[in-house]
């Protein structure tokens, strides 16, 4: 059951529902009674959140690719920085898109990916595949700026060769319902994965960051830091699964998820899972959900900082730890500004 199947078959019964264990907190079947009509062709003139950063842009408007798909195929030893923009431009319509990025051995790609909702009430599905050859490096920075009334699902499936390096940072402020999911096939063998993210959710928005990594071979590394700030009646979901298959010895996997609840009606659902079937592994996870430290808040106020400003400073610093780990300098600063604009509480 996926949104992509439902859109292909124009059949709401194919939508994932709360009966699917992995979708229990992001029910689509219960939300969508009828699929909106397919989206028309449209254009997007404005620039996306990454502006002119990088060398080239691949624009996808209402599910239609406008530009050269070859930008996502990076030849051996080549490196590039590409903006990939998914724009939903038409109210009360639905669309899906499937894309594949292929990085040959030793290739390097920095992908500046954005989700942009320019109209309310759309339904969008993005299904992405990434293949990384031996020693290839992909840094994926995602800014998900969906409309408050949009419904948005993105799935990235990542397949790594030995020695490949995959790093991502996903930032979102949620939507009416939104899931950003990443699944990684990890071969071990000195391949490295970093899967960070942050959700800043206010009003009645919903953001779901779901990740699954399967370590199939020995000597692999995965690290993850997810942070969330939820205010009003917002809801944040984090589901993180790391599977260490039999024989994937000496796997080093660390997962951290930390969330701040800024109101009594805000909600965070977290399911960190480590499934370990190998010996001699170093795996750890930490998961905390709490309120802003009132003593720290008073300390800042005692120095003269007004309460609202102190709250903003503390939550920004909390999320900053995720943003600091972005490798691409320009993208890191764009991400920092993006998060500051969307600060909640």
């Amino acid at each position: 059951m996926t949104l992509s199947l439902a859109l292909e078959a124009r059949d709401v019964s194919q939508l994932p529902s709360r009966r699917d264990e992995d979708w229990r907190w992001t029910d689509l079947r219960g939300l969508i009674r009828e699929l909106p009509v397919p989206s028309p062709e449209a254009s997007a003139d404005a620039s996306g959140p990454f502006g002119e950063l990088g060398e080239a842009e691949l624009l996808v408007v209402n599910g239609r690719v406008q530009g050269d798909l070859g930008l996502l195929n990076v030849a051996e030893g080549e490196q590039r920085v590409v903006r990939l923009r998914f724009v939903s431009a038409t109210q009360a319509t639905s669309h899906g898109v499937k894309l594949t990025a292929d990085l040959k051995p030793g290739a390097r790609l920095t992908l500046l990916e954005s989700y942009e909702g320019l109209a309310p009430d759309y339904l969008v599905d993005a299904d992405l595949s990434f293949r990384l050859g031996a020693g290839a490096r992909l840094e994926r920075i995602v800014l998900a700026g969906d409309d408050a009334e949009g419904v948005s699902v993105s799935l990235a499936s990542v397949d790594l060769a030995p020695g490949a390096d995959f790093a991502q940072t996903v930032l979102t402020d949620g939507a009416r319902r939104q899931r950003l999911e990443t699944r990684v096939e990890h071969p071990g063998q000195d391949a490295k994965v970093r899967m960070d993210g942050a959700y800043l959710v206010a009003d009645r928005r919903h953001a779901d960051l779901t990740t699954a990594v399967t370590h199939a071979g020995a000597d692999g590394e995965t690290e993850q830091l997810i942070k969330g700030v939820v205010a009003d009646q917002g809801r944040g979901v984090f589901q993180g699964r790391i599977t260490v298959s039999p024989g994937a010895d000496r796997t080093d996997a660390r997962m951290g998820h930390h969330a701040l609840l800024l109101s009594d009606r805000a909600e965070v659902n977290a399911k960190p899972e480590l499934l370990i079937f190998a010996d001699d592994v170093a795996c750890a996870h930490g998961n905390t959900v709490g309120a802003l430290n009132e003593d720290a808040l008073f300390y800042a106020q005692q120095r003269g900082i007004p309460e609202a400003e102190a709250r903003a400073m503390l939550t920004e610093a909390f999320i900053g730890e995720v943003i600091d780990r972005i490798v691409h300098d320009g993208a890191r600063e764009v991400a920092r500004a993006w998060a500051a604009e969307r600060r909640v509480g």
Partner: protein
Amino acid sequence: MLSIKNLHARVEAAEILKGLSLDLPAGEVHAIMGPNGAGKSTLSYVLTGKQGYEVTQGTATLDGEDLLSLEANERAARGVFLSFQYPLEIPGVPAMTFLRTAMNAQHKARGEPEISATDFLKRARQVAGQLKMDFDMLKRPLNVGFSGGEKKRMEIFQMAMLSPRLLILDETDSGLDIDALKIVADGVNALRSPDRAMLVITHYQRLLDYIRPDKVHVLAAGRIAATGGPELAHELEREGYDKYARAA
């Protein structure tokens, strides 16, 4: 400067301050000494406006202005500074950023222009030098991973930078070895001036050898039980707080 009259305050259901009165004129340094649980820290939190400390009776004014009706940050902007017994760690915010934000917020509240980045840096270097602080420490997240002594020194650094009028030092000597104590005391003494007043809260007499008070008050069971000169601190060191605790 600071005038406290018949102050009663409670934390949750417990009444901690029970009719405390105190006059602290400009230019003077007063020590508040007392046994554990006497209400010393409560007094500092009530004066600075921490939530959860409810004033049920009495007044506290700074140069005639009612302090108790102001927000914590408004009191800071009027020159009230508390050096915390346990300074908080602020992960992700460099000490310099924190302090500059605080300084500009105070300037804004007083209708003064913002301090420029260059002026701020110049002043920070100078003050850090006086306190024998490693300047690089100011680039690290505030108090994160600092030792007890470093945190106290950072408090005095902030105090010197913000240049307050009413300085409240809450157990500033705790966690300091003798060398650090001297540096901190020098930093505090450098701020003594005719238009400033200091309230030095301490459990032990030791600190008062370095920061010489004009008056010593004994706080016991929520009110001032005795007031005297510096010799009172020595008497307390010899004889303990027993007689005041019993009298209360």
